[in-house]
């Protein structure tokens, strides 16, 4: 029994939590791509404006954030009982609950469940958990075709690309690029397709409709699962989620163990926080909730796969564990000056941006994502934006102290610290960046990653705790 308490990280060799290169190396590619940075800046600026407007509308936004944070802390403290209760409620409502200790086991469970239906194709609604464990790769290896139905996932799949944002995986593509991908890769597409977003959305609607109507197995993630009632919730926009959750005969939902919420009424907090922080809407177009199976309505077989894959190891670290409070809204990505310049791919994991910088290294063990805790200027914008108040900068500093310090990070960060610590030099860097833009040579003369940051118009304010202070304090 001694291994009961041993932290078990997400295993190597499966899933998408580890990149091929370190963050600074991967970021260099993105920094050399001005189109990518323009696309990212445009998208994140749009979303920030919308989120600011709809959060300012709620007089109790700060209270909701505090309650959201407290509910998540409560959940972590009672996780065993809550998961047992969830299992009991789902089972009582006609569902079947499976427990997966890691990515390999989850992939095996889902593959076997699909095999048992005799089907060779599944429709999927965007789910971070299934991307994390590499489910699509596992299904394909077993001869089962996974069809992503989310518009952005479809753009990524057709473009043979990788996701770069939690909420909007194709954020690195603009409308003209999406049109080109559709024209090139989408069977039966109208050659007169324009880059008007409604026209692009309509093309996806036509393309996927027949697949929805003819595929009897779906795989989904879950945003929330209520222990008290056994109710699952999926929050989405396009209706592809409703299609996957309603039309098939068999529904398989893969969910991280941290997604459980204690009570039904707790959803009143998260359903206010998530859409406003995420897409900047008062409410997202569609939220589906279901409890087990309902006779005569929707899938008649429901399987819930509860996934650990390193989460219990994250929970064992009292400082790092609040990374598990994340509701995957992506607000921290949209405000992050480093994300805006480096893009999502540089983080090497399905979890990019500030949350990825603290979550991925903890799921894999810091040694497998050693550069990620350095992928931040510690400016604190992510903490302010987070609807459940995760103190990401504090976790970053904590992880830097536990991580090995590769030479490259040391050098890059020291150079960045030196410049950012000196307002005069910083202003000069900003001027240089402006000049560089005019003459078409970006970030000349500054060391990475600052060269990337200064290539853009809106430099972050010098952080209150500078790299230098932090470096000196270590």
């Amino acid at each position, binding site marked *: 029994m001694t291994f*009961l308490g041993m932290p078990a990280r997400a295993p190597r060799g499966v899933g998408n939590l580890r990149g091929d290169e370190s963050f600074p190396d991967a970021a260099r590619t993105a920094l050399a791509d001005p189109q990518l940075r323009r696309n990212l800046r445009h998208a994140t600026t749009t979303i920030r404006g919308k989120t600011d407007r709809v959060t300012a509308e709620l007089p109790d936004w700060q209270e909701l954030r505090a309650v959201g944070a407290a509910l998540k802390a409560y959940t972590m403290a009672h996780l*065993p009982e809550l998961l047992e209760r969830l299992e009991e409620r789902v089972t009582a409502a006609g569902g079947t609950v499976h427990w997966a*200790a890691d990515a390999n086991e989850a992939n095996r469970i889902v593959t076997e469940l699909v095999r048992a239906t005799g089907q060779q194709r599944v429709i999927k609604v965007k789910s971070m958990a299934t991307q994390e464990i590499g489910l699509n790769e596992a299904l394909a290896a077993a001869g089962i075709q996974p069809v992503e139905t989310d518009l952005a996932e479809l753009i990524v799949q057709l473009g043979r690309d990788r996701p770069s944002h939690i909420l909007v995986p194709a954020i690195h593509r603009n409308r003209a690029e999406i049109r080109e991908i559709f024209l090139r890769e989408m069977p039966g597409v109208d050659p007169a397709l324009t880059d008007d*977003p409604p026209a692009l959305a309509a093309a996806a609607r036509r393309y996927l409709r027949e697949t929805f109507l003819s595929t009897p197995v779906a795989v989904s993630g879950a945003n929330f699962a209520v222990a008290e009632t056994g109710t699952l919730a999926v929050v989405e*926009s396009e209706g592809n989620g*409703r299609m996957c959750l309603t039309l098939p005969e068999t529904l398989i939902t893969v969910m991280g163990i941290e997604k459980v919420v204690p009570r039904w009424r707790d959803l009143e907090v998260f359903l206010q926080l998530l859409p406003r922080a995420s897409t900047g809407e008062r409410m997202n177009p569609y939220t*589906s*909730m279901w409890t087990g199976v309902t006779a005569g309505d929707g899938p008649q077989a429901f399987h819930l796969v509860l996934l650990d894959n390193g989460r219990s190891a994250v929970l064992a670290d009292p400082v790092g564990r609040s990374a598990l409070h994340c509701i995957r809204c992506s607000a921290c990505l949209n405000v992050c000056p480093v994300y805006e310049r480096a893009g999502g791919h540089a983080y090497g994991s399905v979890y990019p941006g500030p949350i990825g910088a603290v979550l991925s290294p903890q799921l894999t063990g810091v040694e497998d994502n050693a550069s990620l805790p350095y992928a931040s200027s510690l400016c604190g914008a992510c903490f302010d934006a987070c609807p459940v108040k995760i103190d990401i900068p504090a976790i970053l500093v904590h992880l830097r102290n536990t991580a090995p310090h590769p030479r490259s990070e040391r050098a890059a960060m020291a150079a960045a610290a030196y410049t950012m610590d000196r307002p005069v030099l910083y202003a000069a860097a900003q001027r240089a960046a402006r000049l560089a833009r005019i003459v078409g040579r970006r970030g000349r003369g500054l060391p990475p990653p600052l060269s990337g940051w200064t290539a853009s118009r809106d430099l972050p304010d010098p952080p209150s705790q500078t790299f230098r202070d932090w470096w000196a304090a270590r």
Partner: protein
Amino acid sequence: MNSRDLILGRIRAAIAGDAPLPTVPRDYRRGAEQPDLDLLVERLADYGVVVHRTNDVAAAIAAILGTGQVVVPPGLPPHWLPSGVRALVDDGLPTDRVAAADGVVTAVAVAVAETGTIVLDATPDQGRRLISLLPDLHVCVVHPEQVVSSVPRALDRLDPHRPLTWISGPSATSDIELDRVAGVHGPRTLHVILTEAPHDH
């Protein structure tokens, strides 16, 4: 050891010895007892819902549907439907027949003023989830007593054991440059008829 016990054991070990937490505060707004119907109308319209305020439901539906064929749930009040409309009652219709219809008319369980949301709970006047999903046009009839001011008050009214669909505007996506664009897989046109006429004639 099975994975269930393994995972639960790991979690118990991870949190063992932690200090107890303070109780979760609940100091956010529950919302006004009386909902603001004008706010509902405004918020619905904000996300592209076509709103009709009328006491003649049948006439409003006739004007929306024209000559199209419409799917209706088995418990829809018959007097809502204009005479002569081609209505297909869902008594377990095959999916392709539902998909081929021009529209669907349903009641709602709850409407939330602050967010411009309507919630369906699959009771007989709303029907199976798929009938409000496949046709390209969805007409909902809302009565004032179904309107609540806020999300917390909506949760109070809903039964978690029923399949619930929360709808805020027509199907949309933010996947292209993070801007909301109407119309992907769900109904691309959503009408709400807000009526103070009594349920039954």
